[in-house]
């Protein structure tokens, strides 16, 4: 079960929140001030942080700022902020980056647990999508006259087999899996070469160019998105 870091200086409140979260099945770590929260975060693996705004030693906002600057995946930990003043809400939602959700005191325990669950589920959805994009899939995909068979590593256009390089195949597979979904160049780069994109690198563009040429009349199905990404036109339309 997920580990949650709870940062709240009011001991009684911290205790009841911890109790509720634990009874919902989460593992809870508690910190009473900003500095010990940062300390705990660097030592323990946490999946979510519930963070009070008003904290001794280091206030919640500053904690959040420092967390977002931390190296490694911990910087992107989802954060639920607790605030007591309404006008702070606007700052959390708006000016200050990084709080994924917030609650105004006093709040219902049920709502707190629901929001924690929602945040974790959202993270899970993102992780699953990323995993699904990366993992090879066996199902045969067809898109009009175009057919892609991952098992056989084969693509046929109108029954005729296409000769694609592995990179071209990977990109086409990714695009075909979710028609309509846009993929940025950097993302495709990472998917095709498992490499971090370097700005100005045109290799993805070149692959797409070749892919379009090989697809012939179907080539225009790969649309450019704002000059920095690509997607497969969502609706089937071989005739177009």
């Amino acid at each position, binding site marked *: 079960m997920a580990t949650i870091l709870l940062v709240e200086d009011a001991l009684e409140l911290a205790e009841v929140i911890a109790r509720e979260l634990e009874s919902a099945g989460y593992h809870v770590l508690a910190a009473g001030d900003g500095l010990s929260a940062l300390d705990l975060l660097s030592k323990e693996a946490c999946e979510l942080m519930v963070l009070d705004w008003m904290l001794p030693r280091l206030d919640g906002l500053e904690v959040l700022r420092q967390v977002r600057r931390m190296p490694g995946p911990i910087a992107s930990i989802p954060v639920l902020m607790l605030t007591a003043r309404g006008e702070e809400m606007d700052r959390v939602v708006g000016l200050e980056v990084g709080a994924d959700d917030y609650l105004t005191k006093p709040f219902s325990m049920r709502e707190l647990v629901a929001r924690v669950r929602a945040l974790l*589920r959202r993270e899970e959805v993102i992780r699953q999508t990323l995993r699904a994009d990366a993992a090879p899939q066996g199902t045969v995909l067809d898109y009009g006259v175009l057919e892609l068979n991952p098992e056989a590593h084969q693509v046929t256009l109108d029954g005729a087999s296409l000769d694609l390089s592995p990179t071209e195949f990977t990109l086409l597979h990714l695009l075909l899996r979710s028609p309509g979904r846009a993929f*940025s160049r950097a*993302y495709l780069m990472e998917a095709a070469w498992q490499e971090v994109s370097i700005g100005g690198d045109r290799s993805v563009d070149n692959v797409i160019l070749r892919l379009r040429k090989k697809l012939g009349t179907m080539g225009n199905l790969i649309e450019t998105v704002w000059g920095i990404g690509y997607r497969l036109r969502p609706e089937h339309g071989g005739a177009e």
Partner: protein
Amino acid sequence: MRALAILRDAEIRMRKLWLTASPLRALSETLLLAGLVIGLSLLAAPHTPTTAIVQVDPALILLSGPVCATWCALRLRPAHRVWWREALVEGSVGIILGILPFTIVVVSVYIFVVDRGYQLQLPTVRVFGVFPLAWFAALLFGAFSLEFVVARMGVRVALLWNHMRRTQLRWSLTHAQLLAAALASLTIFIPISLFTLSFRDLSVYRLVPAAFVFVVLTSLGLLIMLPSSAVVSMFLARYMNRRLETLTNATAALRAGDYSVRVPVTGEDEVAQLQHDFNTMAGELERAMRDLQAERDTVATLLRSRRELVAGVSHDLRTPVATLRGYLESARARWESGAEQLPDMLRRDLSVMERETLALQSLIDDLFTLSRAEVDRLEMHPEATDAVSLARGLVASMAPLAWQRSRIEVVADIGPGIPPVMVDPHRLEQALRNLAQNALRHTPPGGIIAISVSADAGRVLVGVKDTGEGIRPDELPHIWDRFYRGASAIEKGSGGTGLGLALVKELTEAMGGTVTVRSVPGQGSCFTLSLKAAQAAVRQPHTLAG
């Protein structure tokens, strides 16, 4: 009363008489007058047929010159043209004035002398028995043309003087004193002239030149008298004027908000009274102003401390109530799940406590709303802001986290020639951050979020577009409502509270902009803020009730 009305009408007519005629009309009138005078004098003059000499007193004719020229000078209206065109018109009038009377004389001579059958050669004609015709022409020319020019210059000087005394008190006072001096001089000169004249036995023909001489003498006397008295008047007027000027300056300073200004009281006359009253008035104004300011400061301090108290109380009450509520909820959950057995009495007590806690919370909410209404006014400080660097900064700060967490690329898309915009930079950044956060929440991994800036006819469009799931058409009208969350947001639990977009709309409209949205489900949404370009826009602090 009637007599007065007639007098007033006469005065208006008189005023309309002077300096109103067009050049052509003035000339015709003058020539008619000259023709009348010269013709009559020629007609009336005795002449002997044999010598063909017209015997008229030359003085009579020559005197008619100044009279006619003065008439013309007084009638001709001054046109406000360029100076050289003005000079050209008036010079031509003067020359015509000199030539035409001469023609009249020659024609008259022909009519009255030649036509009666006398053999006559024009060059030999002696006008008035003395002057050859050419001389006479020169004389007439001088009498009409030069006199006209002199009179016209006099008119100009008089107009200038009039203008000066109308606009400056100093000249008005000098004028009044000069007028008095001139009247005094005239009352001395005229009786003396009349007295001197009465000793001579004068025919009508002699009287006219004599009068002319005396007029000239009187004018000369005035010319000598007036400058000296003008100098004296000037000094007197300057003293008077300086006192008034001090007052004028002080009044201007008072109007501009300097309530400490005072003027020295000089003398005991009406001006001194005015100075004294001014000082008293300024003193009272200053005191009233100071009292008002003190009052305002007190009220502001009171209001501020009250606001702080309310905000503080509503803040400090929240944590204990949250704690209380948490424990009660958790206790009830345990007994409801059957984990713990509680006596009925205690169970009822707990219910009462929970109900009262909720009541307490709604009271705190009210208190909070009150304090928020007063404290949380969004202060706007619009200034010329570079939207491009703001957008780039936002992208730079959001891109790493967005990539790291959900593999979403955040990019800037900047058009050419973006003018600065008139906004509060912090508020604009807040609005854009909200939109970008919103886009992040609704875009799947691999997607793109672009913050675009483009210029469009005096406005700057700042947009946040994403390749996310888009908004359903039936949901579009509701997205700006506070606490509204899209069906998919609730379904997927994608975080968010339904406040972000409402805040964006409030902020944008407070900055005088508009926000619009286009969205295609499955392809993405594009939020666009249309903002005023900063072009000599008025800088005023705006406030917005939050």
